């Protein structure tokens, strides 16, 4: 039984014999693979970065109160009656039975952490200055697991003991307060309370830094007049893109109003999708161009090597063995080209990290070429090489040995 040894030996010799051609085609593959790998890593890095930034201050899954609806006492079918139903104004209410819901969420697969939130609108007042704020009552431990608040503290400490509040950089500026100073927080009714600024944070967004004020869950509950209640449950998941499904499953099972980051950031998500599709198109076309390159060089090689193919056939090489010789050349070119291409991509990434820096001198974002991606690219390039060689290989196999030798 003829083994692969013949094909491998002859393929390597043929490639080495056509030195310049082989070099050209391998460089072609390397450039194609390098660009595809670089772009893939770049887009992965960019998307990862975007998602990280977006989700850095958001929960992956949020449980909300069920909206209150006006229930008309007259049936809609009765068309003789003119009526107009006004939507109800939504009060700040607690989620019913939220402890049970928390437990339910924590036992749901894909959910890593869940924490209660009591949030509502308010005013932060200091002397003459007052700013409207979004008051968020949290349990620091649980909240930190979801939003990593501790990492974002730029002054003071992260703590929400009774009578203490954490505010954003911009709000501190607007109110002209510093650490240890006091502000008054008012909410809807007559409720108001006095807080010491214990920490100042930077959430990476001016808007959030201006609005977000963290206090303890208990303080918020009393300010918002929902003693013992919570307005939201925040949860984080391990599989980011499974968040929508997890949320829908929970919603179906419990009947609560549950939204994932994928719904609240639908636009971002579709932008990311569009980006992924564009990258896919670039990858696809690059693969096609590279394959055409390999195929055309091998077609020429078949013509050049007609005599040799004829001799090999005369000496007992089967059509399938001749096919293998050329498929093997495609595979070798794909493999060597992709290894060089991955190295080339590493170089491009290094250049990017060195030269594309933001105002602070740090790289715009971190791209890392993971070995899984490199391996995947190498395997795909090798398969592409074999596919590209299919037509030339078939030609080589179809060659009539008698005619080939006569030339």
């Amino acid at each position, binding site marked *: 039984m003829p083994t692969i040894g013949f094909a491998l030996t002859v393929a390597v*010799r043929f490639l*080495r014999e056509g030195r310049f051609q082989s070099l050209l085609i391998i460089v072609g593959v390397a450039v194609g693979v390098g660009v595809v790998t670089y772009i893939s890593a770049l887009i992965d890095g960019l998307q990862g970065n975007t998602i990280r930034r977006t989700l850095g201050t958001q929960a992956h899954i949020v449980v909300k109160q069920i909206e209150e609806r006006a229930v008309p006492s007259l049936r809609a079918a009765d068309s003789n009656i003119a009526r107009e139903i006004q939507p109800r104004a939504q009060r700040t209410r607690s989620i019913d039975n939220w402890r049970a819901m928390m437990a339910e969420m924590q036992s749901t697969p894909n959910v890593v952490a869940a924490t209660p939130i009591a949030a509502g609108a308010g005013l932060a007042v200091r002397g003459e200055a007052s700013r409207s704020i979004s008051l968020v009552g949290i349990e620091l431990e649980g909240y930190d697991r979801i939003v990593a608040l501790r990492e974002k503290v730029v002054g003071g400490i992260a703590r929400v003991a009774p009578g203490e509040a954490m505010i954003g950089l911009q709000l501190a500026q607007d109110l002209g307060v510093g650490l240890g100073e006091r502000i008054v927080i008012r909410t809807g009714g007559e409720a108001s309370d006095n807080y010491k600024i214990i920490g100042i944070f930077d959430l990476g967004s001016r808007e959030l830094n201006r609005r977000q004020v963290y206090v303890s869950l208990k303080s918020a509950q009393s300010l918002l007049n929902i003693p013992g209640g919570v307005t939201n449950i925040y949860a984080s998941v391990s599989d980011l893109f499974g968040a929508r499904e997890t949320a829908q499953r929970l919603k179906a099972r419990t009947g609560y109003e549950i939204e994932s980051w994928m719904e609240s950031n639908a636009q971002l998500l579709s932008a990311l999708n569009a980006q992924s599709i564009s990258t896919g198109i670039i990858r696809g076309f690059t693969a096609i161009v590279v394959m055409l390159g390999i195929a055309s060089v091998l077609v020429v090689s078949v013509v050049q090597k007609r005599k*040799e193919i004829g*001799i090999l056939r*005369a000496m*007992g*090489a*089967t059509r399938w063995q001749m096919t293998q010789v050329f498929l093997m050349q495609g595979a070798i070119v794909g493999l060597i080209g992709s290894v060089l291409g991955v190295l080339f991509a590493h170089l491009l990434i290094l250049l990017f990290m060195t030269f594309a820096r933001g105002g602070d001198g740090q790289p715009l974002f971190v791209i890392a070429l993971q070995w899984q991606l490199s391996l995947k690219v190498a395997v795909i390039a090798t398969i592409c090489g074999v596919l590209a060689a299919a037509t030339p290989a078939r030609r080589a196999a179809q060659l009539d040995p008698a005619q080939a030798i006569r030339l």
Partner: protein
Amino acid sequence: MTAVADFARPPILELRALRKSYNIGTPIEAEVLHGIDLTISRGEFVALIGPSGSGKSTLLNVIGLLEPMTSGDYILAGQSVAALDDAALTLCRGNTLGFVFQFHHLLPAFTALENVLMPSLIRSGTFSASERARGLELLSRVGLREAANKKPGQLSGGMQQRVAIARALARNSPLVLADEPTGNLDTHSADEVFALMRQFNLEEGTTFLIVTHDPRLAARCDRIVELVDGQIRRPASWTGTDS
């Protein structure tokens, strides 16, 4: 002694009413071989002569299983090849036949020794130590032991043709087909190459069928088959030409 006496030995090949046409089914259909009957016995050393266009190369290609015949029967080493498919023909070719071509057709990317071992490489994907030893021995016997690791480009035409002969014998093929093996060599090299083939014929019993234009060499063969216009001329005047 005449060729007829060789019928005592078993035939290596028999052609019966063999016909070969090109471009079948087209307006330019042409029959090149018009019913060839030919028997060659094991161990014979036969010259195939004839003017250009007489069909010598076509006949050699059909015998070499490189081209299919159109009709008739062809029994090679006891096996009828008429009904074999491409894979079976290739196997049969590899096991039975060795080739020496006019333009020595070595593979330029491989050394002389590798060229000699190529039939083994084709068959098993590698070559054993004993095959390698046999290859080196063959190269010694054609006087090229020193050139074993040289590429064909570094060898003269005569040397290349001697490597080609060693290759044709590498797998002990019982029948070697040579298409004008001395066609583009000077007289001295031609004599050397011819003598080598004769030597292998006598020492190993290899059957040779040699297409040649050179009457001087043809005269030194056991038997001469003359092809004229696609038919074998009755051998009256040629058989029995002994050197």
